[in-house]
């Protein structure tokens, strides 16, 4: 278990607990649970309005999954089962931050993806693209003390998925993050810049237009490795805390 905090420790008293409060982004900036163009949402996305849950101890704490779950080899998806994966080698790197701009250190990042041909190593994926004996599509890394992460993989391929006629998912890598609180849990997908498939993909287009660019990595020439790998930069921003909910002594005149 790791437990580095990016903040001063909280008071230990059970009474008068001073808990962080995690900001919620407005609905017009978050991905909705349901989206008409994504057919599977029709019978699965709840139809009733969710009930507001106050943020208390259960919500402002969360699992701290540590180094013991990750080995160095988990950060290189191109070397599996005794050989090298086919495809364009890439480094994917960035920082995990909260919306206050603070790094989220020592937090587990789980990723999974299709191979270079757009095929997942999964019993449910049977579209006729080849599996790669040296690619399983699973990566795990911990952020460092500055919230940085990096892994090496191959550029995933696009794949058809039957949602509508000639539907193709833009190339993407699935990401799962915990942050340090139940409220911060995030599962998302990272896309690649300039993908010609964005316009027809309901999973991408379910993201409000003002937030879509945050799901797209940036090509970074400086981080490419000569004669080895291209590089893509993607920072991930989790919900931050309200800085001032309990500070009532100050009249707010800071000028």
């Amino acid at each position, binding site marked *: 278990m790791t437990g580095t905090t990016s903040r001063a420790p909280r008071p*230990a008293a*059970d009474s008068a607990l001073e808990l962080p409060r995690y900001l919620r982004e407005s609905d017009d900036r978050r991905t909705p649970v349901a989206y008409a163009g994504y057919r599977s*949402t029709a019978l699965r996305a709840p139809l009733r309005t969710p009930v507001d849950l106050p943020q208390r101890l259960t919500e402002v704490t*969360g699992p*701290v999954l540590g180094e013991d779950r990750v080995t160095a080899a988990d950060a290189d998806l191109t070397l599996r089962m005794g050989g090298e994966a086919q495809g364009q080698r890439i480094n994917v790197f960035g920082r995990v931050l909260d*919306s206050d701009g603070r790094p989220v250190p020592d937090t587990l990042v789980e990723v999974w993806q299709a191979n270079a041909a757009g095929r997942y190593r999964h019993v449910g994926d049977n579209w006729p693209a080849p599996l790669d004996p040296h690619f399983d599509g699973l990566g795990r890394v911990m952020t460092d003390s500055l919230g940085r992460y990096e892994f090496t993989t191959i550029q995933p391929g696009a794949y058809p998925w039957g949602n509508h006629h000639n539907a193709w998912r833009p190339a993407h890598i*699935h990401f799962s993050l915990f942050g340090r609180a139940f409220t911060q849990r995030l*599962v998302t997908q990272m896309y690649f810049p300039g993908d010609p498939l964005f316009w027809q993909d309901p999973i991408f287009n379910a993201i409000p237009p003002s937030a879509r*660019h945050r799901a797209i990595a940036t090509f970074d020439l400086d981080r490419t490795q000569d004669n080895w790998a291209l590089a893509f930069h993607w920072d991930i921003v989790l919900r931050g805390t309200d800085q001032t909910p309990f500070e009532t002594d100050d009249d707010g005149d800071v000028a």
Partner: protein
Amino acid sequence: MTAHQIDHLSPQVRNANETNDRRPGTPRRGSGFLDEPFQLGLTPSATVGPYLSIGLTWADGPHAVAEGTEGAIWLRGRVFDGNGDLVPDAMIETWQADPDGRFDHPDAPQGERRYPGFRGFGRSHTVEPAGEYGILTLKPGRVDDGKGGLQAPHVDVSVFARGLLDRVVTRIYFADEADANAEDDVLAALPDDASRRTLIARPSDDGYVLDIHLQGDDETVFFAV
């Protein structure tokens, strides 16, 4: 669409245009001053898709407490869609206090923790048996409600699946905690007993059972956190 639109959280900046940006006292674009705390835009969520088990499977995932721990219980249930069909490709994650109501976390009150091997976090896919989740854990204790009272024992639950573009959040309460449940203000704030019943697990042979209905007449109460 331009490749990189700049997001302005401040309505005074965002909504500024030729007709309103010269009102006296209105922060001017380019004035160099922020009129609200600086916030980074959040990374938008996306569905886990159908192949989540590649990335999100741990051998010990369902074990919020180590196997063989005295007093361990199974939380089980099935997940149903709007047709009443089992959802065979969902994932449930649980997070909860230990039996003393404590969390191993820097923001929680510190104190003695008497349950070695208790992780508080469980993760279960609904693949086998189809549509069913199972989490091995200890029954949580009551947790401070922040207002001088106690919440009823509860487990926070996230549900992920293909067809959900974001996780949905619910809670598991326990049918044999009727007195505590009656005092719980989250349960009390729900509109009726039918809503409350969707959150209350009933005792079973090896723990408790609660089905999750994503839609339908008995749609589970989901929470915005």
